[in-house]
């Protein structure tokens, strides 16, 4: 995927990608927090940005929102160069930080009013946008409740509401679902899909693999370097993920723990890990599945089922991380 050559200056004309990052570098003293990261986010995408803690996710967001100057590289957001036009970038984006930064001593309505004024909305427009946001996020019953009295899920909805009052075309959500319950998590994703349908682009960081699977475009950053970039399905089909001559299988058995120990001894099984009531294994593809079942049963393991399996995104990231640790490879793009 080649980076679009966006203009460094001038008006955005609506054809630019939502985000274009080329060779981003950020250094803190001797420490390189972000090392040569390039990616492009098209308009209307839900872009999932993944990586372990401390790998540089938040730093990249801060660079793209103009909070941190770039040590190297170029980035444009909504067609505007973040180095030279940070202020106009900020007018066009919404940002929701990790801890849903709201004012606990202000009510829902007051929090919304404040952010509306911050973005300089006229009183009429503010009223209309507040009604829209309240309705969209279902905040109606809580308008007079103080921020501090809201549960995690409602805090997050209010934070999202505040971030989209000024109708940004691009929203950065930094771990929007950290610490909230599964129902609220699912509702948030439903809302994101709905908004994305209206042409809003989302840049979402997360730890949850199931959330990554929902994104239309994912990238994985591992200790300052981007090691994967593509749609979930295309990443699954990367040759690096399922090396030549291997296949993935799911072994269902009631005795997963014991079975795992034994499976790891068997020749031809390259790696194995537990998923609930089953084991996911990477095996040599000349291995006959019936042979495998026999070998396990010989050791006293009852095998209910063995079937071929497509790699999950977690498998993808594990394999790419491993490969990256072994030899400094370049970004796997798909």
């Amino acid at each position, binding site marked *: 995927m080649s980076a679009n050559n966006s203009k460094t200056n001038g008006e955005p004309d609506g054809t630019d990608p939502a985000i274009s990052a080329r060779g981003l570098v950020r250094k803190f003293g001797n420490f390189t927090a972000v090392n040569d990261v390039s990616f492009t986010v098209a308009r209307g995408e839900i872009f999932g940005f993944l990586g372990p803690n401390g790998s540089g996710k*938040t730093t990249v967001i*801060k660079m793209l*929102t*103009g*909070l*941190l100057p770039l040590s190297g590289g170029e980035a444009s957001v909504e067609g505007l160069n973040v180095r030279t036009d940070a*202020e106009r970038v*900020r*007018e066009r*984006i919404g*940002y929701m*930080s*990790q*801890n849903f*930064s*709201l*004012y*606990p*001593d*202000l009510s829902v309505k*007051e929090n919304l*009013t*404040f*952010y509306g*004024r*911050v*973005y*300089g909305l006229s009183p009429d427009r503010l009223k209309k946008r507040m009604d829209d946001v309240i309705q969209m996020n279902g905040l109606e019953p809580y308008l007079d409740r103080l921020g501090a009295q809201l549960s995690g899920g409602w805090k997050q909805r209010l934070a999202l509401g505040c971030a989209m009052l000024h109708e940004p075309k691009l929203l*950065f959500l930094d771990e929007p679902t950290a610490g909230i319950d599964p129902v609220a998590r699912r509702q948030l994703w439903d809302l994101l899909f709905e908004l994305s349908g209206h042409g809003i682009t989302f840049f979402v960081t997360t730890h949850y693999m199931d959330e990554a699977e929902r994104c239309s475009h994912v990238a994985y950053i591992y200790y300052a370097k981007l090691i994967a970039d593509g749609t979930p399905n295309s990443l699954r089909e990367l040759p690096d993920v399922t090396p030549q001559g291997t296949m993935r299988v799911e072994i269902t058995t009631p005795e997963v723990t014991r079975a795992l120990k034994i499976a790891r001894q068997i020749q031809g099984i390259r790696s194995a890990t537990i998923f609930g009531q089953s084991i996911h294994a990477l095996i040599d593809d000349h291995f006959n599945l019936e042979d495998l079942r026999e070998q396990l049963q010989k050791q006293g393991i009852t095998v209910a089922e063995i079937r071929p399996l497509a790699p999950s995104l977690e498998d993808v990231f594990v394999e790419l991380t491993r490969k990256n640790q072994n030899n400094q490879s370049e970004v796997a793009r798909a």
Partner: protein
Amino acid sequence: MRDMFRGFGAVFYKETLHVRRDFGTLFFSLIIPLLQMLLLGYGIDTNIRQINTVVFNADGRRESRELLDRLKNSDTFHLVRYVNTDHEMNEMIIAGKARVGIKIPVDYSDKLLHKMSAQVLVLIDGSDSSVAGQAINVTTSIGLDESLRRVLVNNETFAVDMRPKLLFNPDSRSPNFFLPGLTAILLLNVTTFLTAFSIVREKERGTLEQLFVTPVRPMGLLLGKLLPYLVIGFFELCMILTFMRFAFHVPIHGSVILLAFLSLPYIFVSLSLGILISSKANSQSEAMQLAFLTILPSIFFSGYIFPRETMPKIFYVISYFVPASYFINITRGVILRGAGITHLWIDALALFAMGTFLLVIAARRFQNKVIMA
């Protein structure tokens, strides 16, 4: 650099809401200075009276008793005990039970009768210099007076008659002198803490970072934060002045309106100082320590306790950089000396310049050093 005050209205709106929500904290931060004033106003009396004094009167006749009466009537000495030996007198002073020992020798009356020079020994505990100074002054002047009365027999008048007159504070009342200065210190306390905390709280909550991703400009943010507290600081000043005037009966000789007007630049400096502190501190306890660091020089170098003119050169120079120096000059000027704008405009201007300088520095710091989470 378009619209450098952007976001001012929004921040001002929000900040007034914070203040209204957290009325309890505000109430206490406004009441505590009044309590401090109450304690210090009643506690501090720099006029030295009734010094504990031990007497060894070896003479005991009429002339010696007359001398003791005169010492007693000066209101400076409080005769706590009469002793009969030098040793007892020394012990009393060493033990701290008396600060002054007066020994009238056995031949005091005889020498006076024979028109000879009679000596009186006055032992003074020098561990408190102001007490010692006062004791020396009063005893020597009583001695001088006593001598003159004996020399000038025929209703002759003094050759030179010095007539000192205290202007502005004729009774030398301590509150009159201390409370105008204290006003500056108390006001500094309240305003610096309030603004520093209000910004550091936003750092702790992460809302400041959120604000920096919006089009709010640092100057708009800082002024929006500053203005509500300027109003509160002004209100606090009015309370302190009312308290000073009616609870401590400190007369205000100049114009109250002028004083109120000239206090605005001072409140502005203290608030800017609070903001500068908040650009450095990342937690409320850190902000607290930094605020104390700025309050100490205000107490010691501003002339509140020690006159600036008698300070060592280096401290005198430092005192020019302490905002409280200028405001104490203003409060004492208006309250005690009835000074007008023509005498004090330069102090007000200096304060306003300092405030602007601090605020610009703070805004630059917020602009450049964006907060790392």
